């Protein structure tokens, strides 16, 4: 039938065919999930009204200044920087969590649970990561090596986990984040505390003295 038509009529028919083949959402009738869907538009307006005059804007300053004390970092955050921070901290993704292991020797003096001043830089990085990731649940696990009694190590690891939590909440200024602390003592070593022949493994013990942070 098309062959029988004069050229201009063919053009009209072909144009109409092309228009019919184009996705419907190019024109008015967006589907349910499209951005111009009246329901999406209405929901957006409703959401805006719930947010009030500030429209849910989160101020950059304040929170970050409280954390690190460096105003220049306050709103210089970016996905690239976050990647770098996580990389510096040796972060690993485990399931839906981000796991960061901090050396106990960096955080604490021997047999103590007061955060060392030189450890604050690492903790500040962690605060930054938690803020940028916008996560609200953080589990802090304390671990020790196998020296000392089990009961003592359990107590020490719990106190160390709580000390990290206290730092996050006070010096870190992490508001709106729920922290959970667990002391595992020597129960969950990262590596063996002794060599296969039974001799001491100081390197292994160093790795076992740690605080693990699980960001959920």
């Amino acid at each position, binding site marked *: 039938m098309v062959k029988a038509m*004069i050229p*201009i*009529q063919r*053009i*009209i028919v072909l*144009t*109409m065919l*092309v*228009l019919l083949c*184009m*996705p419907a959402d*190019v*024109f008015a009738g967006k589907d349910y*999930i*499209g*951005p111009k869907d009246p329901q*999406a*538009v209405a*929901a*957006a*307006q*409703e*959401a*805006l009204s719930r*947010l009030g005059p500030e*429209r*849910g*804007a*989160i*101020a*950059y*300053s304040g929170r970050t200044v409280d954390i690190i004390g460096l105003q220049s970092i*306050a*709103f210089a*955050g*970016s*996905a*690239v920087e976050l*990647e770098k921070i996580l990389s510096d901290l040796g972060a690993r993704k485990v399931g839906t969590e981000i796991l960061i292991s901090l050396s106990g020797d960096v955080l604490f003096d021997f047999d103590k649970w007061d955060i060392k001043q030189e450890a604050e830089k690492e903790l500040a990085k962690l605060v930054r990561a938690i803020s940028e*990731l*916008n996560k609200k649940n953080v589990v802090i696990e304390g671990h020790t090596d196998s020296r000392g009694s089990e009961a003592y190590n359990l107590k020490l690891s719990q106190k160390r986990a709580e000390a990290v939590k206290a730092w996050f909440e006070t010096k870190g200024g992490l508001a709106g984040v729920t922290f959970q602390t667990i002391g595992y003592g020597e129960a969950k070593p990262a590596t063996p505390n002794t060599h296969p022949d039974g001799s001491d493994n100081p390197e292994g013990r160093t790795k076992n003295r740690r605080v693990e942070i699980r960001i959920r």
Partner: protein
Amino acid sequence: MVKKIAVFMFLILFAAVSVYALEPIQTQPSTDGKMEASIVGAKVRSNVLTLKVDLKVTSGKDVKIIFLYQDIYVTDLNEKKKYLALKDADGLYIAGPKHDNEHGGRFWETIPAGEKRTIWIKFPAPPETTQVVDVFIPGILPFEDVALTR
């Protein structure tokens, strides 16, 4: 008369194609180099900013992309403010397409090599004095100074 109709139809076709093929405002690669994202729309209407983003696989293999809409945000460096996506009354982000409603909505799809998908998200619009914003999408290098259309 027939000629006039033909010209008219051509004009409609041209306009329709122009709308469909949105020019990227800005393109950024992914941090793993397997794909790129292009912002193809950043329009403000009735105090709502609608962002449209093309996700295109640039590697020779299919790429599985998973992210939460809660992790996408816009910053206004001028006002030093950060905006998260708008949520509806059920706590779901006003965005799409969604694979499921995990954490308010999650994009999860394996995009075949060379193909692209378009996502959209609605945010509270920054004040009228703000002309450009930065956009952050997980796994993608940041978009800086994205011009808003008002």
